[in-house]
Structure formats: structure tokens, C-alpha cells
């Protein structure tokens, strides 16, 4: 059984249809990257998976739980890393993690905080306020926040936004560390090179529908894939 199963998903805001006839199955351990231009519906799709937005029609089942019927169980199964860090500037790194740890009812919370904060290389800044952190450090702490409750699925919504090359490389390294590398991941990205490097399956979303899907190993070069993307998205 697939860990994520989307069937005939439609989403409209008023008369504006954002997603139509989305079907997707993601197996345990898969890393799926979804590419698409602005307004394609990528973020709406992730928000539906994260239970932040309700689907208009169709079925979305995550880790065996329907997003409409069992949203709390779905939220327990997922971690979200976005361009927004969901961190409080006035609290320290440890206080932020402690707050989210309590919200997720994590047992042995202090031990877990020490573990995740050292994995993202911020143990030495644990008692510093997040407001004093650089964008890259905040994003690393955001990873710690997202994996704090050991989610089986990670949803990554444009996680590279605002990161320089060094910080992006560090982000990739953390994502491949033991403990996160077997998590099922869905990533939304504009960055074709980086998105392809990490995934084992790539999809292109355009005008609310999937228009292309390919296994990573079947792509001979990034240039070739970029050409397919340009053709499907811009029609050139």
C-alpha cells in the first residue's frame, strides 16, 4: 500500500480551479520532486497534503489516514519544511523546539532536542534567540523542528528560497543524513538541478494538472529534462 495516495483530487477557490484530476501514489522511502511554474498549484497541493487546505473533491490518504477524516493523525505523520521557518524570533532555538515538542507530545523531549539540534549543527547556538540567526541557520533549525517528532513523511515546499549556495549545499547534506534519508519526501522546487539531484522521481505540474512524470534514472541529463520542462510549461 502506498504511503501517500491521491485520487482524482480537485481544488477550487471560488470559481477558480487550482488543481484538477490529480492522481499520485508515493511509496515508502520515495523522494518525489514536483516542478512547475508560479501559479501551477504546487503549494496548494502541499497545503492539502499538510491538512492546511481542504480538497474540494477527491481522496487524499496519508500513512493510512484520510486528510479530511483524520487530520490530526495525518499531521502526526508529516513534517513540513517551507520557505517560512515557523520559528519564533523572540525565543531561543531550544525554546522553539521545546514548544513544538510539547505541541507534538514528544516523550523524552530534552534528549530529542539535543539529538536534532546537533544533527543540524546548531548545538552551540541552542540558547541564542532565533532573531539573531542568519537565513541559513534558521532554515537548518527549521529542519530540526520538522524532524523533531520523527515524521514518516517530509513535505518540502521551496526549501531553498533565500538560501545561498553554501547554505543550500548544507541543507542537502542534512537531508541525506542517517535518520532522514529513509523518510518519504515530496519536494516542490523551481531549481531543476537541485531538485533532480535529490529525487528518485520527478513530476511537472502545470495549470493544476500533472503533465509529465519520470523516474530519475531514466533522465540522461539535466539539460534534456530542462528542455522537456520548458516545452511543457512555455510551449516552446
Amino acid at each position: 500500500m502506498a504511503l501517500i495516495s491521491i485520487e482524482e483530487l480537485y481544488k477550487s477557490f471560488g470559481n477558480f480551479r487550482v488543481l484538477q484530476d490529480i492522481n499520485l501514489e508515493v511509496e515508502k522511502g520515495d523522494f518525489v520532486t514536483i516542478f512547475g511554474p508560479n501559479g501551477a498549484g504546487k503549494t496548494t497541493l502541499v497545503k492539502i497534503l499538510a491538512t492546511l487546505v481542504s480538497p474540494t473533491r477527491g481522496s487524499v490518504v496519508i500513512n493510512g489516514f484520510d486528510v479530511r477524516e483524520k487530520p490530526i493523525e495525518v499531521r502526526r505523520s508529516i513534517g513540513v519544511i517551507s520557505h517560512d521557518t515557523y520559528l519564533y524570533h523572540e525565543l531561543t532555538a531550544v525554546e522553539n523546539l521545546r514548544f513544538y515538542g510539547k505541541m507534538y507530545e514528544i516523550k523524552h523531549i530534552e534528549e530529542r532536542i539535543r539529538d536534532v539540534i546537533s544533527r543540524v549543527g546548531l548545538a552551540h547556538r541552542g540558547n541564542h534567540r532565533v532573531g539573531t540567526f542568519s537565513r541559513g541557520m534558521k532554515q537548518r533549525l527549521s529542519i530540526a523542528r520538522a524532524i523533531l517528532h520523527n515524521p514518516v513523511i517530509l513535505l518540502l515546499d521551496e526549501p531553498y528560497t533565500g538560501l545561498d549556495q553554501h547554505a543550500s549545499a548544507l541543507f542537502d547534506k542534512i537531508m541525506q543524513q542517517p535518520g532522514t534519508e529513509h523518510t518519504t519526501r515530496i519536494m516542490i522546487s523551481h531549481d531543476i538541478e537541485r531538485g533532480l539531484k535529490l529525487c528518485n522521481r520527478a513530476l511537472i505540474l502545470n495549470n493544476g494538472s500533472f503533465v509529465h512524470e519520470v523516474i530519475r534514472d531514466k533522465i540522461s541529463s539535466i539539460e534534456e529534462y530542462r528542455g522537456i520542462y520548458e516545452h511543457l510549461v512555455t510551449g516552446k
Partner: protein
Amino acid sequence: MNHALHIAWKDLKTEFRTKQMLNSMIIFSLLVIIIFSFSFADFLTDQKLITMVAPGILWISFLFAGMLGLSRSFAGEKEEGCLDGLKLCPCERTSLFEGKVISSTVLMFIMELFTIPLFIILFDYTITGIPLLVLIILLGTLGFMFVGTLLSALTVNTRTREILLPVIIFPVIIPVIISSVTATSKILTGAGFANITEEIQILVIYDIIFFIVAQLVFEYVIED
């Protein structure tokens, strides 16, 4: 309820570190009391007139200052997308409402603690019926917070939330304002519990209704 307490604790910890809202609320309410006491300086000896207008002044200062806090209650969560972070937590969304009510109410009580002594001094009241006054302030403040927190969540995604919130909140809380002002006026003139039961009933019923309404609709109000 634990989740609500965690949210409230986080809010209060953040606020006590910066004191951005609390300072503004206290200074604003004190200024309102001082300005009105100067405006009515010529009538301060007319005890009958002052008894009529002073409770209204007290509640104006409470509600206007409380509005400052309410407008930031959810808006502050928009920074770094924290509102989505809270919505992603595995708990009922109403915990977010309850947590915000608790933290906003605590801040409002602190502001009221600073305001009441100044009010009593400047309007030359003798301190009587403190338990009753505390009861009315508690019920009035809770009614204001239940409605205010719900509407603050409703307006959080609008660009003009600071303007919109007071415009939509005051018509809804008219029963709270009238009952609280009337009861406060009676208490300050020495009335006992038996004389303010009608106001207490209205406030209790209003609080219960809006707490239940908020529990029922908050999930939809907070969705993107």
C-alpha cells in the same frame, strides 16, 4: 487543554521578553484615563455626574487598549509563517483559539491592574465592592476576548486588519459594554450582588454563547 496552555505560555513568554503589546496597552489605557480626568476636571466635584460617566470611561480605556493587543494576537503569528506551524500541530484547531484567549486575557488583566488604581485616584472613588468589581471585569473581559479572538483570526489575512477589527468587533460586543458599564456604575456607588444580577446574567450568557460559537466555527475561520 494542554495544547492551549502551551500556546498561551509561548505567547506570554514572547510578550514578557519584548513587552511590545503590554507596554502599549498599559500606556494607552492610562492616557485615556488621564485625558478624560482633565476633560472632566470642572465636574469632578459633581459626584452624581461623575458617577454616571466614569464607569464608561473605565471600560473605554479597557476595550480600546485591549484592541491593541487583539490586533496583534494573530498578526504576530504571520511572521515566519508561524500560524501555519501552529495549524500543522497534531491537535484540535480550537486549542489555538483557547490558547490565544488565555494569553490575551492575562495581558488585559495586567493592563487593568495598572488602570484601576489610577482611575480610583483621579475620579476620587472610595474602594468598595472589590470582589464584585473583579467579577464584572472578569466576565466583561472574557466576553470581549471570546469575540475579539475569533474576529482577530477572521481578519488576520486581510490587509486592513487593524482598521477592520474595531469596526466589526464593537457592534458585536454592545451587550458586554452596556452590561459591564451599568454593573460597574452600580458597584462604584455601593450596590450589592442583588442589584447587579441582571447584568451578571447577561454577561454569563453572552460569554457562554460566544465560547460555544467560537468552538464551532474556529476551524473554518482559521483555514486558508
